[in-house]
Every structure is written in structure tokens, then in C-alpha cells.
């Protein structure tokens, strides 16, 4: 895992849940919530958990107000790019519109040896359900951010109804994207309650996540 991971993707693709799980599992120093799109289910809502785990949260300039929809972006978001001794995850809002906030760090995002710009994909989201639409969305994402995507995450799921076949179906589509664009599949995400059902050996690192951002009854 590179020092900085930036997660983008269609809204509802699972960026925040993956960000939080990765931050906890990989003992990341910073989680930078740059979601200016979504009013609910943002990683910033977990500020108490991060405090407990010693993860620094960078969010809106109005801190500890996860229920605000003011799109204020904190200047602290730049710290991980400057301080080379820390690790960080950047959690963006959905689609290219959510990702355009990255332009603010244009002068800092240069060294791709230490930065991964990852597109999270769930083929059960209707806007990213096939190879063409996914490639189109990546082209839009790159145009809007002026950054090159460096990897993909297969987070294909139907929440509680997910089967192993569903994840395999996702992998087949994402693999075709991966080959066309020459981008690695870095992770395949499996929700912990489904783990025992999985026998298939998926591409990339298997990332077992629990539902932290969304409530269990959802």
C-alpha cells in the first residue's frame, strides 16, 4: 500500500466504508474526508471512533459537525502531502463532481510513487454496470481531476443479498476494464458476514470489511 490512497468512484460505490475499514486495518495516520456531495453516511460521522483509534480526521472547517452540508474544505487536507512521514486515506464524494475537490491539491499531488488514485467500482450500481460505462466514468474522473487513476477496487455487492457469484460477476467486468486500461485490481472487498461463503480466489488483496459507516439495520 502506498503512503497516500485517494478513493474515488460513483456515489454509493462504497468509498467511505472502504476508507474507514482500510484506515483501521492498515493503521493509517490520517483520514481526509473530502465528501462535498453526500450529506449522510460520511466517514467524518465517526470522529469519536477515529479519536479512540488515534487516527487523525481531517474534515470540514467546522469540525465535529458531521451533520452540516456546508462544503467547507479544511486547509489541513494538504498536510499528508507535505509531511512525508505520515500515511493517509482521502475519501472523496461521489462521481467526477465529488472528485473535483482534488484540484485544490494540484500543486502537491505529483509523486505517484507514493500516491494511489483508486476508483472504487460496484457493477450493481446502474451507472457503472458494464465495461463501457466504467471506462467512460474513469475518463470523466481523470478529466475533472487532471490525475491518472492508478488502480481499481472491486466492491461489487448487493449489500445483504450479495452472493459469491455477484462478486465474481463484478470481477469479470472489472477485469476487462483492468486489461483495457492497464490498471491493476488492488482490492476485492468482501463484507465480513459473507466471508464464510467465499471460496473463490479473487484478484488483488482480499479486503474484508465490516459495516461501520452505515447502520446495521439499513
Amino acid at each position, binding site marked *: 500500500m502506498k503512503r497516500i490512497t485517494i478513493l474515488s468512484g460513483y*456515489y*454509493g460505490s462504497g468509498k467511505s466504508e472502504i476508507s474507514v475499514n482500510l484506515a483501521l486495518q492498515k493503521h493509517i495516520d490520517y483520514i481526509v474526508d473530502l465528501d462535498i456531495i*453526500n*450529506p*449522510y*453516511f460520511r466517514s467524518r460521522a465517526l470522529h469519536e471512533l477515529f479519536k479512540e483509534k488515534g487516527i487523525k480526521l481531517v474534515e470540514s472547517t467546522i469540525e465535529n459537525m458531521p*451533520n*452540516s*452540508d456546508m462544503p467547507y474544505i479544511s486547509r489541513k487536507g494538504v498536510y499528508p502531502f507535505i509531511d512525508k512521514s505520515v500515511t493517509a486515506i482521502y475519501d472523496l464524494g461521489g462521481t467526477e463532481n465529488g472528485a473535483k475537490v482534488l484540484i485544490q491539491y494540484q500543486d502537491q499531488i505529483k509523486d505517484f510513487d507514493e500516491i494511489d488514485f483508486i476508483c472504487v467500482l*460496484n457493477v*450493481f*450500481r*446502474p451507472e457503472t*454496470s458494464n465495461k463501457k460505462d466504467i471506462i467512460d466514468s474513469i475518463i470523466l474522473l481523470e478529466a475533472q481531476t487532471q490525475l491518472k487513476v492508478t488502480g481499481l477496487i472491486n466492491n461489487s*455487492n*448487493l*449489500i445483504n*443479498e450479495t452472493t459469491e457469484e455477484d462478486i465474481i460477476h463484478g470481477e469479470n467486468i472489472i477485469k476487462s476494464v483492468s486489461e483495457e486500461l492497464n490498471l491493476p485490481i488492488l482490492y476485492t472487498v468482501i463484507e465480513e458476514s459473507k466471508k464464510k461463503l467465499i471460496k473463490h480466489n479473487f484478484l488483488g488483496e482480499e479486503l474484508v470489511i465490516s459495516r461501520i459507516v*452505515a*447502520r*446495521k*439495520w*439499513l
Partner: protein
Amino acid sequence: MSKVLMKGNEAMALAAIKAGCDAFYGYPITPQNELPEYLSKHMRTHGRAFVQSESEVAAINMVYGAAGAGARVMTSSSSPGIALKQEGITYIAGAELPAVIINVMRGGPGLGGIQPSQADYNQITRGGGNGDYSLYALAPESLQETVDLIKESFEIADYFRNPVMIAVDGLIGQMMEPVDVDREVKKWDLKPKTWAADGNRKDHPKNIINSLYLDPQDLENHNIKLQKKYTEMKENHQRYELINMENAEIAIVAYGSVARIARTAIEILAEKGIKAGIVRPITIFPFPEKAFKELPSSVENLLVAEMSMGQMLQDVKLANECRLPIHFYGRVGGIVPEAEEIAQKVIDIIGGQSHE
């Protein structure tokens, strides 16, 4: 078609397209923005109309215009925006026009907050605008139910020539869930819209869309006619679900997201050996009073749980007709009750620790 994973707001938008919605007029407000955003992209590709209006007031009056011209039309908003729309809503009801209005509720009063709420219950069920009128108001608990009901709501609106409101809270708008957007829904027996002022005088004599009746007797007659519609809704079109009610000692009355949470609460209670059921109103107007007549004799208490200070509680009191003790648990301001809180309230009631 197989299921897709959708966000509530998007799923509602897609459902409208599937239902043949000809036009959408709306104004941005959190937490429903993904709905008009989705439609701004997809209505055009379907050859339908989309306008981001200058205000909520303009949006609902555009809806009134398009509905008067015989189109299937929808708007969406969230609580303070719905308050602004009340002028147009009463005109639509008064002129007997079909329209679908989605309310993704947030906390109030005033600018309130952006987190989920059910505090528009009175605004939705008690008119909101001026005059004696009612909306047919549906309050789904899942995205699949939301999609199905939105598709059907265009039929219901056309059938009654009355606005239909889809009352969901911000959670339904923002949550992700797998849905089948092509599931068949009930088709209503609809007549051609020969009343529409659609600028097609070759096919019909002059039509007028109007809610002005300057003669008091005419206006009273018009009100009596409208009232017959609401009576028909009350008598024949109440919708509700009774969940886990066999031998239940307590019934939790909850709709929308809170019903969903109550489902988890009754599982928690079952583990503790307490049998709790749920009365889940699907229509909040007409309020499903019939459900309360069907409760088994094992039910000794009612618990009304909602994200308001007790607005639906008033309707439950009327429907209960003083038969059972009624308890209340409400969270407001955007705070969503946890299943454990509702379960604890039930435990308190059964243990005699809660007062009506």
C-alpha cells in the same frame, strides 16, 4: 430484470421515469439533491421535460401547469421546500389535478437540519395549504417499496385526480439498497384526461382548469365533491402491514425508516422472550385505522415510535378509540432512534416503568 444497487434518491428518480413521468420541475435542497440531478441527466435522453426552477413556489406552479395540460408530472423537495410548495399544492388539489410530490423529510422547524426526520407528518396529513383538501400520502420503508409505490402513485394520482405525496425521510433518500426497478405494480382503471386544458380544441370543447368559485354555494358543492374522494380513500384505500402480530403483547406503531428499525427491535425483544409486533402504516393519509381493529386480543399496549414529537400519535389515539394504553417514543432533530432504544422502551412498558 435483475436487481441493481441504488441510492434512494436515484431510485425514486428512475421509478418516475419508469412510470411515464412526462415532466419534472424542482429546486435544489438537501437531502434530496441526487433525485433532480439524476433526472436532469436522464429525462432529456427519454425526451421528457426537466426544469430547475427559480424557487420551490415556481416548481409547484409548473407542476400545476403541466398537470392541467394532462401530463404526468412530479416534483420533489425536502421539508422547508415542501412548506413553500403548499400554495401550489392546494391549487392542484382544488383544481383536481393529478401530480406526484416527493418529500424527503429533514428536521425542522425553520431551516432545522439536514438529517432525517418525520416531523412533516402534520404538514402532509393536515393539508399544509389552505382549504379542506387532503393528499393521498404514502410512506414506504424500503427502496423497493418506494420504487413500487412511486410507480403506482402516478396511477393513483390520475385515478383520484388528486396530488399524491411520497413521504420518506432523509434516510430513505440517502440509503443504498438493491432494487428491481421493473417489478410490475398495480394498474388502476384510468379514464382519458378529457378535462385537460391541453390546447387541443380540435378534439374537445374548451376546457378550464380552475380552483376559483366565487359563488359560495358552488364552492360548498365543490368541497362536498372533493370530500367524497377523501372518504373513498379512507374507506377503500388504507394501506398497512401487521408484522409479527400473532400472540404479540405489545404493538409498535411505526412507519418509514422507524418501522425498519422497529423490525430489528422486535428481534432484540424476541431474544429476551418478549413478543412484540408492528403496525406499519403505509398510507399516512388515509391513516390506517382499520389496522387497529385487527389487533389480536393478546396486545395490551401500543407504542408509537416516530421521528417527531408525537404527530402521528394523535392519529393513533383517534384510531385506538381509547381501547389500549398508548406509549410514545420519539427522537427529533435528525437523531434516528436505535433499535436498542425502542426495545428498551418496550421493556420499560412491560415492566410498568413507562407511563402513557
